[in-house]
């Protein structure tokens, strides 16, 4: 059973402090956690669920700016003392998460002087640097590289080779139009890297997919591991 790593690295006394405010929830695939320009009702720490954070443009297009699974948290503006935001968070993969409602999160969990508060700010820094990396990646890396990166990012979070995602959604995730995504997937399938499934994609050759991906996948994974390690050492 996958457990949220941000909660997992906390020392025992800190976990006991926040436990009364935590609630186990199941998130359905495609369900919305919060919409743009609304008040964020709570924060979520995914276990098996994976959340896409999207930015919408005026003409109805959208781009994913963050993929959050067991390594992270959804609802960052609340950590920064803000309640509203312009992002859209949806469950890309349904599953379990730990939810903390806004009021206890802000009043109790974030109370200054506790390890969790400092740790979450380190996570916010990681999250912001990942968005910046994605901005450069979406502009400068080829669609095949970005597609491979996204599938690896997803596989890191689900730890499954079968990823429940359609071509149409994949285009949205990597900021490309569906035909170019379909072509890129077809090329990967022809080379035996991926295999199409009904409403899903299976990773057949993980090392090959890693070779196809841009550096952003491993760069972000390294930064994530380093950040979690720093949060763990806060308690020491």
């Amino acid at each position, binding site marked *: 059973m996958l457990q949220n790593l941000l909660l997992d690295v906390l020392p025992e006394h800190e976990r006991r402090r926040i436990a009364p405010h935590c609630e186990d929830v199941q998130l359905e695939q495609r369900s919305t956690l919060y919409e743009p320009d609304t008040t964020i009702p709570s924060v979520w720490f995914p276990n098996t669920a994976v959340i896409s954070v999207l930015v919408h443009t005026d003409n109805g297009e959208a781009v994913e700016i963050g993929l959050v699974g067991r390594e992270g948290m959804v609802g960052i503006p609340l950590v920064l003392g*803000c309640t509203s935001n312009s992002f859209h968070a949806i469950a890309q993969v349904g599953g379990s998460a730990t939810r903390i409602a806004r009021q206890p999160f802000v009043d109790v969990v974030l109370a200054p002087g506790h390890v969790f508060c400092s740790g979450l*700010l380190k996570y916010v*820094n990681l999250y912001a640097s990942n968005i*910046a990396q994605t*901005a450069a990646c979406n502009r*400068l890396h080829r669609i095949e590289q970005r597609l491979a990166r996204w599938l690896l990012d997803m596989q890191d979070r689900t730890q499954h080779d079968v990823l429940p995602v359609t071509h149409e959604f994949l285009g949205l995730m990597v900021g490309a139009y569906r035909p170019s995504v379909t072509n890129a997937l077809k090329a990967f399938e022809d080379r035996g890297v991926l295999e199409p499934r009904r409403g899903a994609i299976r990773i057949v050759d993980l090392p090959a997919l890693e070779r196809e991906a841009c550096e952003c996948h491993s760069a972000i994974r390294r930064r994530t591991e380093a950040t979690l390690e720093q949060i763990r050492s806060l308690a020491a």
Partner: protein
Amino acid sequence: MFALNAGFAPELRRNALLASLPADELVRLRTILRVVPLTPGQQIIGVNQPLPHLYFVLSGSVARLAQIQSGETVEVGFIGSEGAVGLSIALGGSAPIGLGRVQAGGSAAAISVSDFNEHVRAQRSALFDALLAYANVQMHVIAQLAACHCLHRIEQRLSRCILSLEDHSNGAGSVQTTHDSLAEFLGVHRPSVTYALQALAAEGAIGVERRRLIVRNRALLESHACECYAAIRNLIANHRDRAGQENA
């Protein structure tokens, strides 16, 4: 000594984050803030190197760039006197959020990591909360530009970029920049920038000089820009308003 310090505080108040602080807090901070010059092209935040200082911009501007391994970049925000560069220090993070390169020369009030941790973070001062709220604004700016660089056409992005640069040059009506810099901001090759600039110039929206662009018809330029220009301008204006109210 007193006379010197009394003359120093008004300069610090040119920065919206510092101006939002209660007078006694600014008095306390001015002994640890050091005013430094910002020279065009100077890299004040690098990648994979420790962040020595957090900079509150007093005048001029800094471009935040996201870079990939090949060295290619895109711009993910211009920061002027409304903000600060080196937010990773406030967040206690180890990796910087992009590169920081001085765009327009000016000055900044710098605070070292150790002074920040001792005098601002540990005491949970008003400045700390102001920086967190500002980090939320910047996160939205970066996210907006992540979508923009991906979805919008070069004419739209170039117009947005020129307008943002002009906003950060105190309404001078012109912008000091080069085709190479614009190519780095937009993540495209230089000929694409030159071509798009010529098209805007032919319409009379801008004038193109060797190291300078002149905004001749702002309304026309705004009509070419994508919605991201207004979205980011509003984010920054709201931040300035909030900072102003803190001190009211």
